[in-house]
């Protein structure tokens, strides 16, 4: 289990998500694919946090262990923020899909050719 292997898994999941976004017609499946891509990014952020040294540690040695530990944990902090943004995004996306379905009886992106209600 090395950084490269984790990044490989992350890249594959991200690519699957990208395929889903580009090729799928159902807006709900497109949203699911976007969530997959968010997940792949989270995996990469956590892997970098686990396996690489922050430049701050190499350039200027910090005095306190707690500061050093926190700079290593930056990747995990990032992942928490990504999760929060993804949750907000999926909530809005699903609400939009529901609103569109009420008006047009369809959630296919090919039917959404105009921005008018």
């Amino acid at each position: 289990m090395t950084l490269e292997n984790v990044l490989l898994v992350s890249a594959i999941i991200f690519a699957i998500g990208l395929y889903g976004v580009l090729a799928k017609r159902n807006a709900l499946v497109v949203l699911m694919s976007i969530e997959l891509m968010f997940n792949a990014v989270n995996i990469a952020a956590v892997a970098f946090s686990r396996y690489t040294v922050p430049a701050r540690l190499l350039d200027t040695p910090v005095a306190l262990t707690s500061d050093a530990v926190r700079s290593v944990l930056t990747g995990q902090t990032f992942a928490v923020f990504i999760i929060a943004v993804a949750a907000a995004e999926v909530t809005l996306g699903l609400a939009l899909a529901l609103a569109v379905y009420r008006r047009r009886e369809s959630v296919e992106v090919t039917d959404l050719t105009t921005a008018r209600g």
Partner: protein
Amino acid sequence: MSIEGSAVVDVAFWIVAVMAIAAALLVVTVRDVFKAAAFLAAAFLATAGLFVLLRAEFLAVVQVLIYVGAVSILIIFTVMLVRNVPGGNRTGGPFYVFAGAAAAVLLALGIVYAAFKTDWTDLDQAAAGDDRVAAALTGQYQAEAAPGDGGIELIGGPAADQETARQGVFRRTANNLGTLFIRDYVLAFEVISVVLLAALIGALALARERGAET
């Protein structure tokens, strides 16, 4: 004593990784949208397993609570509300399938090439070889908060070996993450709260039945 670095972790990693990739593939290939949503929950769970193996226990719990517990359920509810989705999990046609697959394969190859080509500064090796990094990362923790710092303080001499450094960094992850949120990233933390509130209100406004206005 930790089992890190042993074959057990490797085997567990590949099992979880294959589960995550297979579930993700099924999300974009099964015909039934409801099944796709269920496989998405499986992919989220496998990701939580990956987080545990990457020493991010707090994130694994957050992943299960938010993604598996909230996002998947929300998606499944929406799939059930959008009854008899015409055509199910259809693609946009052969052109879109080809273009999407080509873009995905190219992107994956590019990322993998960059990942294997780059010379990463390895945390474990740096902790064992670089004195400054080792001094920063190792040492014994003081349980009480140091005045003026509010956190934990280095009191012991550095012990420059990988195992100590690893355990020092990834011990009490949740505590250190909490400190990061209310000190270094407090602005982002407050902004994300407002974003979540705005998303909540926006979702309510969007999903409201048109005739229900009073």
